[in-house]
């Protein structure tokens, strides 16, 4: 599939007045390759789903409003075409597309991008940067732009879910387990993340800021004593 054509379509669609899709937590306003790939997947599926919905509801309307309309098609053919033919056309390519797209997003062994440890506890987020002397920030996650980073998530108490919608999908933070999510932001700027798994009273407010710095500048920026969210050590 030609990615640039799809992406151009997406940008056109976005420009064509879908301003309702922007927002600090919008998955449809991607700011990283993972989120962009999933947003593309969504638009493709939306078009497909709209066609299929129109097809089925259209057939329903026709058989009711024009009695006898579909009676020239034999009963067996109805079931074969609709029940088996339609899914056979739609599902395999869709599942394959989804799996290939998903495979690209997984933190596969082989490449070893820098790691940042994110620790969740009711109801706050703490990030540690092992490549930067183990410094920590609370409520803020600093990322370098344009490079993949593996976020290693752990929880002290209940299950949380780490999610920066504009950068990509979420990963559950399960106590007793270590999960890894690969994220990448395209450009410097401010983004938002939040907990997506219900974790009790403070769930609604369990958000964090994401500050993306130019990659060359990253070490210097987070070394500053007044870097956002910095935990005094």
């Amino acid at each position: 599939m030609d990615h640039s054509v799809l992406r151009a379509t997406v940008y056109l669609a976005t420009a064509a007045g879908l301003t309702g899709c922007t927002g600090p937590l919008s998955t449809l306003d991607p700011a990283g390759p993972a989120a962009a790939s999933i947003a593309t997947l969504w638009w493709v599926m939306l078009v497909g789903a709209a066609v299929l919905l129109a097809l089925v509801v259209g057939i329903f309307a026709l058989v009711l409003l024009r009695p006898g309309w579909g009676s020239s098609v034999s009963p067996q053919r109805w079931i074969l075409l609709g029940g088996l033919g339609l899914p056979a056309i739609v599902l395999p390519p869709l599942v394959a597309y989804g799996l290939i797209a998903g495979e690209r997003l997984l933190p596969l062994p082989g490449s070893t991008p820098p790691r940042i440890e994110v620790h969740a506890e009711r109801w706050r987020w703490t990030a540690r940067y092992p490549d930067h002397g183990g410094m920590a920030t609370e409520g803020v996650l600093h990322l370098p732009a344009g490079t993949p980073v593996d976020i290693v998530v752990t929880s002290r108490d209940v299950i949380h879910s780490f999610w920066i919608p504009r950068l990509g999908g979420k990963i559950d933070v399960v106590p007793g387990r270590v999960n890894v999510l690969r994220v990448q932001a395209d450009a410097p700027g401010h983004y938002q993340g939040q907990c997506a798994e219900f974790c009790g009273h403070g769930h609604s407010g369990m958000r964090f800021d994401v500050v993306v710095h130019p990659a060359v500048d990253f070490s210097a920026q987070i070394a500053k004593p007044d870097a956002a969210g910095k935990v005094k050590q």
Partner: protein
Amino acid sequence: MNAPIEQPPQGSPALRLHRQLAAIWATGPGWQRLAAVNHSIIGLRFMATAFAFFAIGGVLGMLTRVQLATPKAAFMDAETYNQVFTMHGSILLFLFAIPMIEGIAVYLTPKILGARDFAFPRLTAYGYWCYLFGGTILTGALIAGVAPNSGWFMYTPLSSNVYTPGINADVWLLGVTFVEISALTLAVEIVVSILKMRAPGMSLDRMPIFGWYMLVTALMMVVAFPPLILASILLEIERAFGLPFFDPTRGGDSLLWQHLFWLFGHPDVYIIFLPMAGLLSTMIPVLANRTLIGYRAIVVAIIALAFVSFGIWVHHMFTVGIPHLALAFFSAGSAIVAVPTAVQIFAWLATLAHGRPRWNVPMLYVFGFFFTFVFGGLTGVMLAIVPFDWQAHDTYFVVAHFHYVVGGAAAFPLLAALYYWLPLLTGRTAVYRLSVPAFWLVFIGFNLTFFLMHLTGLLGMPRRVYTYSGHEGWTWLNLLSSVGGFIMTIGFGLVVIDLLAQLRYGRRVRRDPWRAATLEWAMPIPPAPYAFASIPEVETRADRIAPGELARSLARGEGYLGFARNGWQETLGIHMTSGTPEQVIVLPRPTYLPFGTALATAAAVLAMLFQFYLLALAMALVTAGLFVWSGQNAGLARDYGPLPVGRGLSLPPHTEVAGAPPWWALIFTLVADATLFTSLLFGTLYLWISAPKWPPAAAPEPDLLLTFAALAALAVAAVAARGSLRAGAAGGAPQGWIGLAAVVLLAAIAAIVALIGGVVPYPREHALGATAAALLGYVALHAGIGLLFLLSNLLRLASGRISPRRTLDLRLSRLWLDYTAVTGLVAFGLVLALPALVAMLGARP
């Protein structure tokens, strides 16, 4: 169909027969209503109660919409909101959807299949009372402000006693389990009744499609509920007694809960959908004026759907961090579900295309169903695509999706069915003045509310947040969703007014207003308590009959059992597949026992809830005792031999045949039980393979001598049960064998209790000890229930209810003790293998 039909003046034979049968089958007035066991009455109660819970759940849903309509709303605080959304989901799924399906099954299935009642009327009544009491406990907790607050799927460790102290979570675990056990008893009853109690001649391939749907649904319930029941029991044990099954700090794993929950939760979606599809497959042909197209394709499709639905639970867990090969498998599986669903959709469309559809209110709701279900199905396929799920999971997109598939796709067929079958319930046909605007309000309100939620989710709104700040871009969507919710609520209000108006002003009709083609219309409406004055012989597929003509002949008693005998409530039992009549089933009369037993059960649950464990144990024993007591007057007190059933045929009573309903009921109960046991084995091995904090500090050292002693005792009990059966069948005295079985069972229980006492590591310290104790406890419990079987055998031998021709009781005991011995062997084997398994863990990362 039946004997040739002459022009019938509704003669006195029909009236006389009606009076005789009504006297036998009627439920008494006043307080005697508590003793009702009739399927029509219990079915209506189920449906009415479910509707009341629908109203409560709906109001809770509206409260959440009020809270979310504006950002930073102060209408509810977080705690209240958490209780409200948890109860909204729990009530609608556990206290509305499933019981409504059971109500429909209980009310409609015997009538569609040509039986006078279900196989176990007292069990139906017990199931109803358990549901009512369990639902009342949950609702009472809501009023008291201590309702469950961890979300309807109760993920641990949030729902553990560390993070949810207080009784909130216990209310859920105990209340829902109470209701689930009632659902399980009904599922077994539905399966047995469908398989054994159809009209003579109705072989499986002549069964109306509704029967197939209910059969598959009930079989799914039999295997879907046990994992959840097990998980709830384990979590309650963890909360109450500190045995860690899910606690990651002590060798448990919170993901085990998720696996067990969704192993139930995903099939549950189809358990809700399939009966709705069954209603549609029954109504659409009638509304289209032709028989259903694709009967066989649909049967294959729903069986396939049932199997696939058990293999895709992990799609609720795509974000928990599981291996990507598993993701691929479950993603493909989840997409494949679309195939059997599409087969049904196109079978219905083909039926409409080849028929002459009528355009009326049921059809309007059928349209509502098509739209919402196809819509929800398509978003379901989207969510099966893993990368998209990583974004959409746990957002309002998912909320929107499942409201389309289990909300819309249940509500619209239900309302279609309500308008379609209302004449059967009330004996009045409908006037549709209010019905049409009510439909459009519901339809527009529903789609406004939930369509927009897809976008809200994609804009990043997670589920279960009680408020938001307002800068996220969610405000206008939430406001419109709330407006839609209120439009929908007004629509439902109008539907209620409309239904009341139908009851009051509908035109009286005597039978079959639709020119339908199934047996439930082959009776005067509303139905008499005995349903069929006589039971038809079915000679064609039973959704191709002309019930109007048949009804008159049946009312005159020209079918089977068209008479009253001995004051018995009689119906026919058939061969499962061929439909050949093989027994006269004599059903129990109204009794207060189900009500009393359910009260005792509720007392046990409440005592458990308030931590009066001795009282809980006592009430559980009272419940068990009442079950044994209710067994005492079941069946018949003497041998009868073949009894005439009319049309020149004579059949033995069910007490004197091999395949009586209780035999099959025990088999399907054991299927459910074995599923629970398998889930426990799965849990043990799952923790061993993947839980953190393994291996434990202390290595397990099971006591070999005690283990083999217990196993030997169980084996001897199974052998003794054979001895008692042989003696009973030969006319001898089985009491000695029964005594022997009881003594060795007691010995086995003592040995197992000693084993549990010696479990290392100590069950409260590590999940290894906890699961070992649970496995042993499972066997001890079954040995204990075996004692109840033996006690019942002794009592019934003494009262002459067991004879060489009536050996069913002894065979049931044998089956139970065989099952106990086999599961004991497996459980003990696993416990003995645990040290070796733990030793293998050295290599684990």
